[in-house]
């Protein structure tokens, strides 16, 4: 074997020094006059405000960036007319200033080079970096066809690059947001109701009487409008039922917390369906009018009694009955929340289907306080020549998984590993806005794939771990420094929001729309980028929609009236569901025809062997995945993750809160760094828990480097969902090591 060409590079010193320190606190004393009436108003008179929508997570809340007289960014405040945030950002949105201020940002393009036999990066001009990338695009196309160049993306930059890739002739595009996150629920709900859940989820939490969370930890995930609506629901006296082996924040707000044994959720939900049907408390009218396959379902779930589920889930039969009755009493204003990160055990689209079917029995889809019919407004396409038709793309790469509706990132990576039966060889890759070292399980696969690539480009604002594998790194400017595509949101009412730069890009960073255009022009695809500045595109689109950039710069968000019909099912009419039959599919002929269970079944999943604990992971409200760990403001709130350990376990192992430990998983993978123990009653004795997104290995992330454990590196065992290719990641078991396993080993 040849020496590794793509050895991970810890990015070497870059140009440009730090930014000016924060100014000292204002002293505004002396004044004694206060207004009696407090008016809610965000405008600070001396500040200029520029509209944007947030890019710290995928919720894309519209906001105002406030700059002072010197043009320095002071704060970011939510846009009051935005249905994603109702004028209130979450800590990450408020802390978005840190993304701009972070001294560790990528500052110039970087090109991999070898100095004295050592691989390193050297600073390069945009001209040189873009020329090199364009040359590689040409070479790949000539040698293998354009399909061999893959794009892995996340967030707003993805759209510009998707356009570039399609113009170039490649549809080999995927994002971890699908098969590593919410894919299964889209498949499960589409199979049942005919439509995706989508983002934001059309959950009518504001008006619900009963919110059921199954492993979903709203409040720790700061999906802004949902957190806000959950708070409203608490005010309105709604009942919250949380099913979670961990006592989550949401569990603490719940009337019922069901501390379920991990990996048994389907059994609980089958028992709930059993109770609803056996006790005749399901929505009979709704089911008779709208559902197919009720009799099959009744027959199917008759065996799944609460007593049966008790033995599996550990939830007492009376609790199962009581919670089912609570849901029925609230119906149809009840929500079995579809969740978001739902790739757990490999039977995830079936679990999502169980959730969808429960919603159906409760009559909540298309009902007030259940799920509303979302609507968005179409943003007209800026004119460009038609795209080429690639010979193969994400669909073919994922063809093993019949109901995959988007590219499966792990399958695209597998396609990069040369083998005789690989029909779709991926040879080059661009990764933008996603740190795949922390979003893709099975590090071995990732490294093998990257090693085999002929060329890899990474675009990011930060020197994330993934940049260390690149041949060329391009520094993207932050969302506060650029124009971007119009955010068209699906909500109760359609709305749009714009992103306008509040400041010039710092350092030598650039917006991705500019990079895409530069590469496109070098490839002779200039007619696909028929503008000098992306704001021309936005202005043209807005004018087609009856607005303009000038107007949007003043208001930031524009709301439109609904055109698709009422928010809920009109009870006087018969709604036609967008399924093949026009009805809710309780029994799925489609799944049956594909060789899968037409109705969900409980499957027993592996359990941790003695001395091992199930590795569970989740979110902290002040961080987004791994991308915010180095943000100075957000790092200040939470610098590292900790390992939640039940006191019983802590006693057995003799470990204490604050003690540093390492983890080894069932495949002998040892964590790169240590993690501090947090002994807490909030976690079960058979599992441990940590917040995802820490344990960065890139030294140039000066705040985040070496802090905590990267849960993803311990996820070497993946249970693939045969229906849509999702990568189940909750079946990994770890043991706790108290002595440094890396002693005398350089890491």
């Amino acid at each position, binding site marked *: 074997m040849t020496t590794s060409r793509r050895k991970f590079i810890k990015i070497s010193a870059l140009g440009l020094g730090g930014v000016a*320190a924060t*100014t*000292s*606190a*204002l*002293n*505004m*004393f002396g*004044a004694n006059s*206060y*207004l*009696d*009436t*407090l*008016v*809610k*108003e965000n405008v*600070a*008179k001396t500040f200029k405000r520029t509209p944007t929508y947030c890019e710290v997570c995928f919720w894309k809340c519209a906001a105002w960036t406030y700059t002072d007289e010197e043009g320095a960014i*002071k*704060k970011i*405040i*939510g846009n009051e007319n935005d249905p994603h*945030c109702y004028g*209130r*950002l*979450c*800590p990450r949105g*408020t*802390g978005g*200033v*840190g993304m701009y201020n972070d001294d560790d940002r990528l500052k110039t393009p970087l090109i991999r080079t070898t100095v004295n036999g050592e691989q390193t990066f050297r600073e390069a001009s945009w001209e040189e970096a873009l020329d090199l990338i364009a040359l590689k695009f040409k070479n790949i196309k000539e040698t293998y066809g354009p399909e061999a160049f893959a794009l892995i993306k996340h967030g707003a930059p993805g759209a510009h690059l998707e356009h570039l890739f399609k113009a170039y002739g490649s549809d080999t595009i995927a994002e971890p947001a699908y098969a590593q996150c919410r894919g299964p629920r889209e498949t499960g709900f589409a199979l049942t109701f005919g439509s995706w859940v989508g983002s934001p989820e059309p959950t009518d939490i504001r008006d619900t009487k009963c919110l059921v969370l199954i492993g979903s930890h709203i*409040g720790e995930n*700061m999906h802004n409008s949902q*957190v*806000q609506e959950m*708070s*409203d629901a*608490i*005010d309105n006296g709604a009942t919250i039922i949380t099913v979670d082996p961990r*006592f989550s*924040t949401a*569990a*603490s*707000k719940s009337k019922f*917390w069901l*501390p379920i044994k991990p990996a048994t959720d389907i059994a609980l939900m089958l028992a709930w369906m059993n109770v609803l049907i056996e006790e005749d408390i399901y929505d009979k009218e709704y089911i008779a009018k709208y559902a197919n396959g009720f009799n099959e379902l009744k027959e199917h779930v008759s065996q799944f009694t609460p007593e049966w589920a008790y033995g599996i889930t550990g939830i007492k039969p009376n609790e199962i009955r009581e919670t089912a009755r609570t849901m029925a009493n609230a119906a149809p204003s009840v929500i079995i929340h579809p969740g978001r990160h739902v790739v757990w055990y490999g039977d995830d689209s079936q679990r999502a289907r169980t959730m969808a079917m429960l919603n159906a029995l409760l009559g909540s889809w298309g009902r007030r306080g259940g799920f509303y019919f979302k609507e968005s407004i179409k943003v007209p396409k800026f004119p460009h020549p038609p795209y080429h038709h690639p010979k193969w793309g994400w669909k073919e790469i994922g063809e093993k998984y019949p109901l995959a509706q988007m590219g499966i990132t792990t399958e695209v990576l597998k396609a990069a590993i040369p083998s005789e039966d690989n029909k779709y060889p991926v040879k080059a890759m661009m990764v933008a806005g996603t740190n795949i070292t922390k979003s893709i399980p099975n590090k071995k696969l990732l490294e093998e794939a990257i090693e085999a690539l002929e060329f890899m480009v990474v675009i990011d604002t930060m020197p994330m771990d993934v940049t260390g594998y690149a041949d060329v790194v391009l520094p993207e400017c932050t969302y506060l420094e650029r124009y971007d595509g119009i955010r068209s949101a699906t909500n109760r009412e359609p709305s749009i929001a714009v992103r306008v730069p509040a400041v010039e890009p710092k350092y030598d960073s650039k917006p991705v729309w500019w990079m895409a255009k530069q590469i496109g022009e070098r490839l002779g695809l200039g007619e696909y980028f028929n503008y000098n500045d992306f704001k021309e595109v936005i202005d043209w689109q807005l004018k087609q929609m009856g607005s303009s950039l000038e107007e949007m710069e003043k208001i930031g968000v524009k709301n439109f009236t609904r055109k698709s019909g009422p928010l809920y099912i009109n009870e006087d009419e018969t709604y036609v569901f967008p399924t093949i039959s026009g009805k809710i599919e309780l029994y799925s002929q489609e799944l049956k025809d594909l060789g899968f269970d037409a109705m969900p079944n409980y499957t027993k999943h592996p359990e941790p062997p003695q001395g091992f604990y199930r590795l569970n992971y989740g979110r902290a*409200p*002040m961080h987004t995945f791994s991308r915010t760990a180095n943000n*100075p*403001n957000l790092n*200040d*709130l*939470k610098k590292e993750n900790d390992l939640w350990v*039940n*006191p019983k376990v802590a006693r057995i192992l003799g470990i204490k809160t604050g003690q540093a430990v390492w983890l080894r998983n069932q495949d002998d993978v040892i964590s790169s760094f240590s993690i501090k123990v947090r002994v*807490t*009653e*909030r*976690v079960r004795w058979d599992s441990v828990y940590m917040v995802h997104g820490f344990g960065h290995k890139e030294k140039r992330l000066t705040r985040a480097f070496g802090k905590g454990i990267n849960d993803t590196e311990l996820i070497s065992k993946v249970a693939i969902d045969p229906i849509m290719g999702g990568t189940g990641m909750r079946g990994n078991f770890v043991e706790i090591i108290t002595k440094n396993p890396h002693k005398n080993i350089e890491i």
Partner: protein
Amino acid sequence: MRYAMVIDTLKCVGCSDCVVACQTENDVPVGYCRDWITETVNGAYPSIELELKSERCNHCDNAPCVRCCPTGASHQLDNGIVLVTGDECIGCGACIESCPYDARYQHPDGYVDKCTFCHHRLEKGQLPACVSVCPTKCMYFGDLDNPNSEVSQLLKNRKYKTLAPEAGTKPQVYYLI
């Protein structure tokens, strides 16, 4: 006029947005804070209680920090807000020691700093930054002397507590429980 803050612990998720909003609004240097989140867990699995809450200066009616300040830099306004005049503060730290809530810190510029209830915003008719951003809307602010104010009504109709009442400081940040 008696300004007070009321925080609903039944709604707070402990996200720390109040902390960041305060930092950006008041130019609090990274690494310092005027408000913070506490988490209290009681009970044993699976009978557990969790309380999350946002804490800050309690703008006490009987403020030990004001009484112990040798220069008068720590002072209280008629509306109850306790402030520190930066250029009168000698940074002796007596107030930091006297505060039962650990609400004060020494700013890198030498003076003692803490929550001001964002009184510069109140002048403009705006709510304190933390209250205005909170995604759970668990924080309320207003005048306790006005019986019809939201804060007065909440304290009239809901169960509440204050922090360290035994210290006798008469704190003016109330927690709904």
